[in-house]
């Protein structure tokens, strides 16, 4: 049994280094100068770390000089700020998605739990079905819808597909959360003379706050990290972070240090939030997939 233990530690250690190596490398590269990142053999950590790549990402000045080649993509303007506008776009669209999807999901969940009517169980089941299909299937219809409504390159045009992605999962997640909820509290409030709406907003939602916050964070993270829809819908004024970073990749001479710093900024919020809600999220995923 002792051999098994040592063997297991070795396996876990190998997997952990496999998982963590790319992060380390990108972290190291983000502190290099451009020349250093193009040296053979490649180094993991820079000899003289520089902070300029990180500072550059947040700088407000419009860049036209050395980075000009970075902006030669599509019909893009040749100058502009590196990432700060896109960070703002990402934050705005993520916040909006999170709030809106919670607002839409709460009534759906409440109704499917508190009122029994013909086909009520189909609503969460169809939500799960939609969640299971990959988003690439929806790209064509969403794109044509947005073109016809004139919503290409607007925040609302991006909000529509994001709601399609988040609402099913949140409905599923909140349903699992609300199903074991002490509903006697609502009945007590109703007997005391509350209206149903007031009971919902003043009693239930306050008690369910942890679940709501988890769902809110999930929606935020999903909208922050989304790539496919952002790629097709955003234009020069609404580009989110990943699409801006994509322009860096599509150069002949990629500025790896700045790109890696950008990728890390793009990933940090998600990693932090996920570790905060990991427990609930995984529980929701497992109950969702097993209980059916």
């Amino acid at each position: 049994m002792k051999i098994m233990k040592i063997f297991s530690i070795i396996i876990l250690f190998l997997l952990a280094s496999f998982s963590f190596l790319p992060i380390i490398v990108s972290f190291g590269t983000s502190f290099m100068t451009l020349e250093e990142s193009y040296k053979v053999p490649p180094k993991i950590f820079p000899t003289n770390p520089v902070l300029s790549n990180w500072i550059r990402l947040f700088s407000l000045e419009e860049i036209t000089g050395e980075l000009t080649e970075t902006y030669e993509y599509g019909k893009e303007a040749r100058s502009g700020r590196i990432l700060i506008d896109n960070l703002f776009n990402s934050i705005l669209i993520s916040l909006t998605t999170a709030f809106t999807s919670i607002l839409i999901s709460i009534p759906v969940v409440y109704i499917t739990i508190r009122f029994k009517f013909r086909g009520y169980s189909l609503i969460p089941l169809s939500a799960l079905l939609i969640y299971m299909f990959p988003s690439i299937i929806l790209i064509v219809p969403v794109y044509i819808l947005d073109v016809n409504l004139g919503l290409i390159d607007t925040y609302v045009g991006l909000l529509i597909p994001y709601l399609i992605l988040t609402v099913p999962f949140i409905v599923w997640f909140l349903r699992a959360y609300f199903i074991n909820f002490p509903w006697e509290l609502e009945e007590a409030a109703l007997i005391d003379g509350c209206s149903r709406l007031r009971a919902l907003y003043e009693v239930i939602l306050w008690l369910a706050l942890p679940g709501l916050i988890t769902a809110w964070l999930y929606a935020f993270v999903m909208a922050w990290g989304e790539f496919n829809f952002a790629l097709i819908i955003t234009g020069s004024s609404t580009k989110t972070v990943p699409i801006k970073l994509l322009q860096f990749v599509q150069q002949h001479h990629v500025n790896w240090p700045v790109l890696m710093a950008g990728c890390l900024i793009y990933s940090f919020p998600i990693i932090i939030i996920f570790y905060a809600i990991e427990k609930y999220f995984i529980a929701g995923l497992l109950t969702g997939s097993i209980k059916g």
Partner: protein
Amino acid sequence: MAVLSLMESGSSIYENKYVGIENYIAVFNSPYFYNALLNTFIWTVGNLVLTAILGLVGALAANELEGKLKRILMVLIMIPWFMPWGATAMIWKHLWTTPYGIFGWLAFISGLIKEGQAILTSLPSAFLAPMITETWKIYPLGLLMFYAGLRQIPKEIYESAQIDGGGVFLIFRYITIPLLKPIIITFILLNLMWIMGSFAIMFILTGGAPAYATELYSLLIYRKVFLEIKYYEGAALSMILFVILFTIGVLTIYFYKKEVFR
């Protein structure tokens, strides 16, 4: 979408007219369609096998251990799953770059890649590299699900099997695998959908190069719609993918009803 796939755009995208199944005929006559289907099949099977093996091995190892060291290692292992797809692809693009990235350089000095070639533009490495990237991204989920499943198996079963003289391999084959079956099937079903529709990694790493040899189904949809401006062929392609996925999902749930809906 089903309606869109039966139409053809007029002079602009705003005017549609009904053309019947013409778009489907165009799709089925195109060699790129079969090329993309084959690529997606190889991609899906390869990724499923890799993620299932890595996840199962990791879960078995994690199940043997207790304590702080395991928790730290698990935190590190879980990171890729939390990474957004775009960042994953871009970071790995740097790693695969020949010879300036770590793995690109390793392949270069070990002679796997010849002088003047790059990992992401020569076969079969242009297919294998994104596959490893995708595996890196999704195997933690498998590990976690399998681990949760292993924790639910009562220890007494193993003890009685050991007393009856079962070896490690026999115990694994006849106790662990059957008891894990529901989790494995759920994992395969969930992952199959995501892997078959996976877009960002292949799009950023190879973009279908060299010469459509690594073009996945999702990349074909993207190319038809946004590069060749054939919206309605793209809609037909999406519809076909939807039917394929729906059939797979329904068949799996039908055959493994007991396991999935315990």
